[in-house]
């Protein structure tokens, strides 16, 4: 045998190459198995079967309403040609390649050849792309629409302060319809906002036969004495006292006053359904209103809530860490192999403790929070419980590993001085355990505060709780404030914990 490699000897094929090729054509990988390349054959069989199976599932997913397999295939190709066609070609190619590969493997001096597995990986990747519904076009095309909420999250600070609000308004009476005696314009009082409409009577807009709007009288509105450069809205008050912001060709009538607090606009009198019983002259009223912030700026409600919840979050993490440390220290002794390898009983305790710790640790804090919420209800206590449970498991493992790695040398040395057991622990064991314990505990606090922001999403209290509410209310500025607080706190904590750990290790 003319092998040049230093790897294992190639066993002679059981069948001639053409037979191997045909075998693989019928059952993928069979030919390789017959050629004594069992692992390669199994791998190819598994790959082809799973790729084909996944493809069938995707086609069904795309076209499950079609009556037969062929119709489904046609529909799937029509819906996702870029995915389905290359995949089908790829599967056929892989099948043929697999047969040819079997033919080659059955020859005496041929080995390896990784090209076929590159194709396998490419096919899996293509499937993954489709199953994951990856859509880069969407990422680009939807971004502009998302920009407004995103920008509010990124820079939420205008919503961080608020002022006492006051409504500045002035109005003028309008007679509908006009008669000989239109109402006089209101009297102007110095220092007060003032609005005058010309004329002071007219016709409302009406609906015509074909539901088209017949415009009413155009009023000229002149306002004075308003707050300068401030958003101003025009309201209409009908005789029954109903108020609404006037729309003009679909848009609300909203404008800014000029530097002197004056404005001048034209307004078509709005459409208003008047019950027939109310026929006859009526007094309507047009008003210009501004919402003006007065008094000193003060922290807004989202800001106050975010700060309070952030503090709650930090303490939530802290309490969970302290409880975690408190319970995990004794547990960690039970989970330290060097301490527990004395007898089969202690060893059994060790394995039991380890198993429990591993199970508890492998369940995410989020799941624990959901369980805790069921038990103690919404609020920070649920979060503390969830994080405590997870911390006990995580710290228990880390501590026990720290105990396992303590150096027996100093213990021996201290014993040799005639020290008793307690002295040996205080002088040789504890000094070795403090640095890893402190380091792990601080690190855990760091993790717990970060986690507690997430725990809130499922009702575990803390800032995550209000964050998810703001997001659901589409109040992106408030959500942005919460996100900012989380980011700042996590960054500070990260830095502080790194500093402290560096000191102790």
């Amino acid at each position, binding site marked *: 045998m003319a092998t040049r490699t230093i790897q294992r000897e190639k066993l002679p094929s059981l069948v001639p190459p053409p037979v191997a090729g045909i075998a693989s054509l019928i059952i993928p990988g069979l030919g390789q198995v017959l050629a004594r390349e069992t692992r390669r054959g199994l791998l190819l069989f598994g790959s082809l079967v799973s790729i084909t199976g996944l493809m069938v599932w995707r086609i069904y997913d795309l076209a499950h309403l079609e009556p037969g397999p062929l119709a489904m295939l046609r529909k799937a190709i029509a819906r996702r040609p870029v995915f389905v066609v290359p995949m089908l070609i790829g599967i056929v190619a892989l099948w043929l390649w697999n047969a040819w590969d079997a033919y080659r493997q059955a020859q005496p001096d041929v080995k390896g050849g990784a090209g076929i597995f590159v194709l396998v990986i490419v096919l899996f990747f293509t499937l993954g792309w489709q199953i994951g519904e990856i859509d880069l076009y969407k990422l680009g095309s939807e971004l502009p629409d998302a920009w407004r909420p995103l920008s509010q999250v990124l820079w939420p600070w205008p919503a961080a302060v608020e002022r006492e609000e006051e409504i500045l308004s002035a109005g003028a009476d309008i007679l509908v319809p006009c008669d000989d005696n239109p109402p006089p314009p209101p009297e102007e009082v110095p220092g007060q906002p003032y609005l005058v409409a010309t004329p002071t009577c007219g016709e409302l807009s009406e609906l015509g036969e074909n539901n088209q709007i017949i415009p009413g009288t155009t009023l000229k509105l002149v306002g004075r004495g308003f707050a300068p450069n401030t958003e101003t809205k025009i309201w209409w008050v009908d005789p029954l006292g109903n108020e609404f912001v006037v729309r003009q060709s679909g848009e609300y009538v909203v404008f800014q006053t000029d530097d002197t607090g004056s404005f001048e606009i034209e307004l078509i009198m709005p459409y208003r359904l008047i019950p027939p019983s109310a026929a006859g002259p009526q007094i309507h009223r047009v008003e210009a209103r501004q919402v003006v912030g007065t008094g000193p700026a003060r922290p807004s409600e989202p800001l106050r809530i975010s700060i309070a919840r952030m503090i709650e979050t930090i303490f939530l993490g802290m309490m969970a860490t302290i409880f975690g440390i408190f319970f995990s220290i004794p547990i960690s002794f039970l989970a330290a192999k060097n301490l527990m390898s004395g007898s089969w009983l202690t060893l059994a305790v060790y394995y039991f403790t380890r198993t429990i710790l591993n199970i508890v640790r492998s369940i995410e804090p989020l799941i624990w929070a959901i369980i805790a919420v069921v038990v103690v209800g919404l609020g920070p206590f649920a979060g503390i419980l969830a994080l405590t449970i997870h911390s006990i498991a995580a710290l228990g493992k880390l501590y026990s590993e720290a105990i396992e790695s303590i150096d027996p*040398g100093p213990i021996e040395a201290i014993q040799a001085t005639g020290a008793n057991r307690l002295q040996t622990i205080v002088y040789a064991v504890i000094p070795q355990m403090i*640095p890893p314990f402190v380091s792990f505990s601080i690190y855990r606090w760091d993790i717990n505060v970060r986690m507690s922001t997430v725990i809130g999403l499922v009702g575990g209290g803390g800032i995550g709780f209000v964050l998810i509410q703001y997001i659901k209310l589409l109040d992106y500025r408030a959500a942005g404030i919460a996100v900012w607080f989380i980011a700042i706190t996590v960054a500070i904590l990260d830095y502080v914990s790194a500093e402290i750990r560096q000191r102790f290790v």
Partner: protein
Amino acid sequence: MLEVKHLTKIYEDGTVALRDVSFTVEDGEFLVVIGLSGSGKSTLLRCINRLIEPTEGQIIWNGIDITAADPAQLREIRRQIGMIFQQFNLVKRSSVLTNVLAGRLGYVNPWASLLHRFPKEDIEMAMQALERVGIADQAHKRADELSGGQQQRVGIARALMQQPKMILADEPVASLDPVLAHSILGYLEQLNQEEGITVICSLHFLDLVQRYATKVIGLRDGRIVYRGTREDIRRMTDEEFKEIYGEEAVRVSVGPREGGA
């Protein structure tokens, strides 16, 4: 006088570390134990202060049977026996001073010591001990900031704090440079000669053995295969050397003294 009688140690995994080892050490002697790694030197030293429990045999020191001592008596005995280790075995994160003061743990009030409170005299004594080994200026550093040679001197100072009648030194210079080896062994020799402290020390290099030992025992596979005086070891032949160290052994020299090949 230390009498070791028929000492045998079999570990739990069945390894026989010492087989029927008997010897005596007069007070004020500098006994060196030689032998290959794994020949039982460390086990022998640790059996003397019962850091390792002997399986069989007796160790009698000045009439007291160490092997029969109850825990309280054992602590009493241990505090009179200083011990020095190859890896120094300092508590690395504690200060040098704390490490040295730990040598007093067998003497002080145990409860006060748990709070790291030591009598003033002990602290003065610790400073003197550090002075004696020449590193008083390092007292407040962390032990792991010191070099290997300095750490071993801390180890000696810790042993000195016990006001020992005997010092067990387990390969005290095996982790150090040859030049430092002489400096460390020099301290031990000084203690041996000036204060009459018995020293039992395991060593690797024959040159050091020839320079410092007043009496030598050689261990091989847990058995004593060589006993000699200072004069005997100076005249040691290659046959005897190979008897202890095995056929493939070659003498290497260390330190300022010239050694044979």
